[in-house]
């Protein structure tokens, strides 16, 4: 979808590759901001063994593309990429990457912050935490 600028995938992603895809949009890019979300080992007072993410295929990709389009309309950015992993994710592995690029850094910072919040709000993706005591679907977005 959209030259691979929005992706949901099972496997690990390359930050460098995503940055290059974004950079390819224009030589006018002067600042790039990345948000990288990764799997931490402790949550809600419990030790986490691993995470599992599920998505609504089709709708989740559509929402990520909507976020990208709205970010380009509402912020002064040149391009944006979003990658989210699903399936089993081990502690320490990366979960989500947002790359925003603009002529000057401030626009990229603002768009990146907005995009991760919006992703959490409107994208049908769910996280399950697997602990030693059992598994629990997480249904709030801190």
């Amino acid at each position, binding site marked *: 979808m959209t030259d691979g600028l929005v992706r949901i995938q099972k496997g690990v992603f390359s930050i460098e590759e995503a940055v290059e895809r974004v950079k390819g949009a224009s030589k006018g890019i002067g600042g790039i901001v990345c948000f990288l*979300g990764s799997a931490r080992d402790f949550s809600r007072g419990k030790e986490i063994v691993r995470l599992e*993410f*599920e*998505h*609504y295929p*089709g*709708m*989740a990709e*559509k929402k990520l593309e909507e976020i990208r389009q709205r970010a380009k309309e509402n912020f002064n950015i040149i391009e944006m990429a979003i990658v*989210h992993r699903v399936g089993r994710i081990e502690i320490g592995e990366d*979960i*989500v990457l947002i790359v925003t690029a603009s002529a000057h850094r401030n626009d990229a910072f603002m768009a990146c912050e907005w995009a*991760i919040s919006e*992703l*959490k*709000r*409107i*994208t*049908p*993706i*769910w*996280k*399950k935490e697997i602990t030693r005591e059992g598994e629990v*679907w*997480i*249904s*709030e*977005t801190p």
Partner: protein
Amino acid sequence: MITVRFFATLRDMAGVEVKDYPVGEPLTLKELKKRIGDDFPALREIMDSRSILVSVNQEFAKDDSVVRDGDEVAFMPPFSGG
């Protein structure tokens, strides 16, 4: 046929991922929920919770949205991606 999908904790509660509902005339989501509640009593209350999101053909929808033959309806707990 309307295809109803349940995600995450709702799927666990329903015990199924997908359920097809044969329909004649178009009906509202509220009417469809009643039929789903009859089949899955465990979902009856939670389906009306304000935190549960519903989509029709992958667009967010409300109780008075009309669904018809061929539509895909999804019941989704609050998102926790990112």
